[in-house]
């Protein structure tokens, strides 16, 4: 069994505005079409808060009577968010599959229930993994060349 991801459709980001992604703090036992733009997007309002001289734009919205607070999060640089879809409903796990990236996004709205998202949220902590992983998995350069490069840094 192998699974390929068709990403050839993705690179144009022009359509990403119409397909805004929201990360919602609840379980929804449903998959499929829903009128998000009329019943959720209309409740979003923006406000800027200055905290420690850093202006952050916070969002508020209402979903089924619950107050949501959110921020817009940019995806770590070097990365792109994509939504992939399995075009065929599978019957077994043994088939070869090709899943297709339907669209891409470079930012999304992250929502918490009645609590403004901060850097202590597990998502932002999860994003730290991106940096750690790149340090961890960067190939180690051979001794001799590494010494040279260090020397040149010290030389500055």
């Amino acid at each position, binding site marked *: 069994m192998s699974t390929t991801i068709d*990403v050839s459709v993705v690179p144009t980001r022009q359509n990403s505005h119409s397909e805004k992604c929201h990360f919602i703090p609840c379980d929804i036992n449903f*998959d499929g079409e829903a009128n998000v733009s009329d019943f959720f997007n209309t409740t979003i309002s923006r406000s800027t808060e200055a905290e420690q001289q850093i202006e952050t734009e916070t969002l508020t919205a209402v979903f089924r009577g619950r107050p949501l607070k959110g921020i817009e999060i940019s995806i770590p640089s070097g990365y792109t*968010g*994509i939504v992939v879809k399995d075009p065929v409903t599978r019957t077994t796990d043994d088939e070869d599959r090709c899943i297709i*990236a339907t669209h891409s996004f470079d930012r999304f709205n992250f929502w918490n229930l009645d609590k403004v998202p901060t850097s202590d949220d597990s998502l932002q902590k999860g994003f730290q993994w991106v940096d750690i992983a790149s340090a961890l998995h960067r*190939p180690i350069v051979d001794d001799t060349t590494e010494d040279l490069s260090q020397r040149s840094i010290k030389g500055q």
Partner: protein
Amino acid sequence: MSSSTRKSSRKSQEEKPRPEKRDIKNSDRWIFLMKNEIITCNEEGLKPTLCKLRHPRLKTGVMYLLSADCTSVYELTAFKEKFRSWFIGNSVLSNGQMYITTPLDPLFLILPYIINSGETNRFMTLEQIVLDEEFPDSHKLVTCCNPEQLQLVSDCKEIDDDLKVFKFNKEKTLSWLKKKTEAVAEALEMKKIPVSSGSSHSSIFIPSGNAEICKDSYMIFAHGILSEYLSLDLEAELKTFIGLNTTNETPSPTSVTDEPPNKKQKLTTVVAPLEDYTQGKDLKKDKSKTSKVSAAQKRLDKVDKTGMKSMLSFFSPKSTK
């Protein structure tokens, strides 16, 4: 509109009896954070592939992503939080997970194979080394790893221009791993990620006077992260290999600090396979169990029961009289 809300409420009622565990397979869409080069590297109709390779620590199959040109491996880390779903445009995605694809040093995946082949004490080609019948995709690792990198963990003999053979070298491996640990510790320090056990909150963490101890705890934490890619033996060996160095400088009490809680803090993201393959297996097991029971009953039926009292007779007072 009222009819539509009623519809949706009925739907939620229908869904209710389902157990809390959400079946990931229900949704046919997934959110990935892809490294840009995976998306741009898309030549000649080749596509990035998800394939199952042997996890260096767990020894079981785990999904990894291979770039379209088969030169780099990526690890899939699932971000998972209780109560999360997605709105994508005008649709709902119940699967509130996000898969982050981070680059993976292929040496980590190859290392267990090299160690295995090292036991035979022979030089082998990389193709021979990564041969794995259980995970046929393993051969794809050959193109991911260049021979120079491979020499960081092995001795190499060049038989001719195209043919190189390798043998595991423990000392080289340990010093390679040590460099890795230092690189991670450095990154942790730069990012000011709190590593002292006990506090998971950044504001509580104070990089106080003793910088040495601080460095040590970064190293310990980094070692913990690295251990996720190492066998238990190698993890312990690496610890003493690094530990020796730190005891030379300062015999510090920080080496006592527990690692497991540290690891848990880090693991807000969990390395997980894309799909739960164990579920299918469980079902099969259950089936075999029931068939076993019925087989036993059949055998019981064959037993000669002549002269045996009915079980019921022991419990009825009338028949004993």
